[in-house]
């Protein structure tokens, strides 16, 4: 199955094998038609309505602003509703270096996001620490503390690269399984198993 983005050529995406493999893995267990179609509808909704959390620490954030501005206009994809409250955002785009002092804050923001949630590591610093990798207080890549969905390299990445990364995220969402995959039930059970005292406190 080819996962496509409207008016983009399939071959223009560089890592099609990865997505194909993902689709294969997900289809291995199979799903019935009704659930499958509902999944598709929901994934269509999520992938076309990715609201970012405004989170920029350095240079990449300025390029992200350019992305929202008139020339690149991410509103075309419906990405422009940047929410400042993590409760209402869909993905966190880590734009810039994450240092030791920031790490717990970022982790908390990720925890505050409502499911389904995604993470994009954007720019050299977020991917690997970038030019500051050897510093005493820089986190060598946000994947040390968060599960990252898409990496966008660059210092800072060009707005086109941002779009490419966002489209890759859309493709990844299009193949996910909302039922029996990314929904929250399992995570809740895991959490309550670890923190039995919280049961009944929050629901």
């Amino acid at each position: 199955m080819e996962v496509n983005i409207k008016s983009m050529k399939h071959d223009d995406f560089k890592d099609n094998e990865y997505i194909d493999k993902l689709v294969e893995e997900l289809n291995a267990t199979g799903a019935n038609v009704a659930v499958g179609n509902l999944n598709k509808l929901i994934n269509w909704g999520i992938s076309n309505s990715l609201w970012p959390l405004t989170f920029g620490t350095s240079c990449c954030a300025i390029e992200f602003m350019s992305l929202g501005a008139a020339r690149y206009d991410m509103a075309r994809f419906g990405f422009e509703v940047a929410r400042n409250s993590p409760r209402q955002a869909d993905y966190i785009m880590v734009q810039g270096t994450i240092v030791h002092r920031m790490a717990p804050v970022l982790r908390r923001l990720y925890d505050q996001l409502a499911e389904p949630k995604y993470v994009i590591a954007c720019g050299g610093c977020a991917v690997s620490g970038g030019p500051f990798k050897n510093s005493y207080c820089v986190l060598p890549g946000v994947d040390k503390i968060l599960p990252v969905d898409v990496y966008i390299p660059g210092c800072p990445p060009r707005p086109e690269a941002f779009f490419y990364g966002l489209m890759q995220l859309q493709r990844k969402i299009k193949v996910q399984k909302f039922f029996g995959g990314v929904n929250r039930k399992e995570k809740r059970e895991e959490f309550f198993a670890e923190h039995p005292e919280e049961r009944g406190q929050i629901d």
Partner: protein
Amino acid sequence: MSDIKELISAINGNVAFIEGGECLEVQVPEKEWHSFAEHLKNDAQLSFDVLTAVVGMDWKDSLGVMYYLTSTKRGWDMLAVKVVCDDIKKPMIHTVSDLWKVALFQEREVYDFFGIIFINHPDMRRMFLRNDWVGYPLRKDYDASPEKNPVRLNDEIHEDDTVTYVEDENGKVNKVNKKVFEADDYVVNFGPVHPSTHGVMRFRTAVDGEVVKKVDVVSGYIHRGIEKLTEGLTYPQILHFTDRMDYMSAHQNRHCLCMCIEKALGLEVPRRAQVIRVMMDELMRISSHLLSFGCTAMDLGGTTAFFYGFREREQVLDIFEKTCGARMSMNYNVIGGVIADLHPDFVKDVKALIAIMPERLKEYHRLFSGNIIAKNRLVKVGMLPKEDAINYCITGPSGRGSNWSCDCRKVRPYSIYPELKFDEVLLDGCDSYARYMVRMLEIEQSCKILEQLVDNIPEGNIRALNVPKVIKLPAGHWYQQVEASRGTFGVYIESTGEKTPYRVHFQSPCFNLVGVMDLCCAGHMIADLVTIGAALDFVIPDIDR
């Protein structure tokens, strides 16, 4: 210079003059530093009223601080004062934060990096690192092993605790624990991730209803340890850090670092390179001020103006992209010149930009600056009188909005600026609106500079031919300043003659800007906190470095 020497030796006989530096340099015994500083500031003939830079130093056998002072009244002569701690085991220096308020934050930075305790400083907390950090990273014997300071995912505790070291009459230093806020203060936490802090800055704000009582600046959420990193890299390798500090003054910052190294090497930069550098600096300034305009408008809720500012900014970025190959973090200046020649379209593009700017500026004024709501929100908000601006060393457009003539291009000219005709924009509003308007008027001045240069770019080399293959600076130290988009940016390099610098310090303008947040915001409303921040226009990675 000699008469100043006499005046200084008249104050204190124990002062030792250090010869061979680029400016007048003295060493003062620690015990007499505070009284000496008082004389320097208050003596009518000396009147060193600006503390430009505070550089913590670790000379391996001793710890100390280099203070760079200058006087607005006497032609901006620089005086470097070296103060060495008596005891390396328990380093202490008397604070001068009561004389120059800018030292309040600067000395906290030195404490954070070197562990030098400032006696009588009201708030001796760490500035950039977590309060449970082990060790002082810029000391030469710092243990950087990750076991000592792993990535901690727990929150910092005891954020409200601070400490001050008070000296009693007998000269004994006592530690006094304090709280930052009163017990019944209603503290609202702005940041570190907050849309109006322009990055990851945190303002812990005590409010009374909507009125701000006190702002506690908590910084360091993007402290990347650049100064320590430079110590392990060669000079050409450290250049790229400057582009990533204040990314809105990338060219100016890098210009400064290159000039500092060139000064130490005694390199003559070809005129073509000088002209290109100045043009790039001014384009960068335009781009930065346009962003600042957009962000100020957006912070006030006028989102549309933001897009208009960005429209023209893209045009500037196009010019950068064609010549330097990148939209941001251009990495264009190199030691001895610039890395690549101008793109053939450069002249045409710059002319197109200069041609449209006046009209676009009028459009901005129609849309935003003249708007009654915008004026009501900015005029008489965040007052910063000239004396305070000098005392807190608020340079750049923010200082000039307080009518302080502090443009480095005029008062300590460098490169080809003395030959150029442009005005230093000075407004006496002392409020947010004046700071905002200075930026808008500076765009016009930058256009004027570009206009003078665009048809007069001389032919020639873009890089000095005699740049050594391996760059080794002679032993010594140098301090260089330029006028970046947000104020005076300084670079201090200390070399021992190696391929790598012994110590590099970046004196960033934005660090001083956040220092006045408490002063400007107290008594205003929560909404004003946002506009004051926007009008001061700080860039967080420049603060934290």
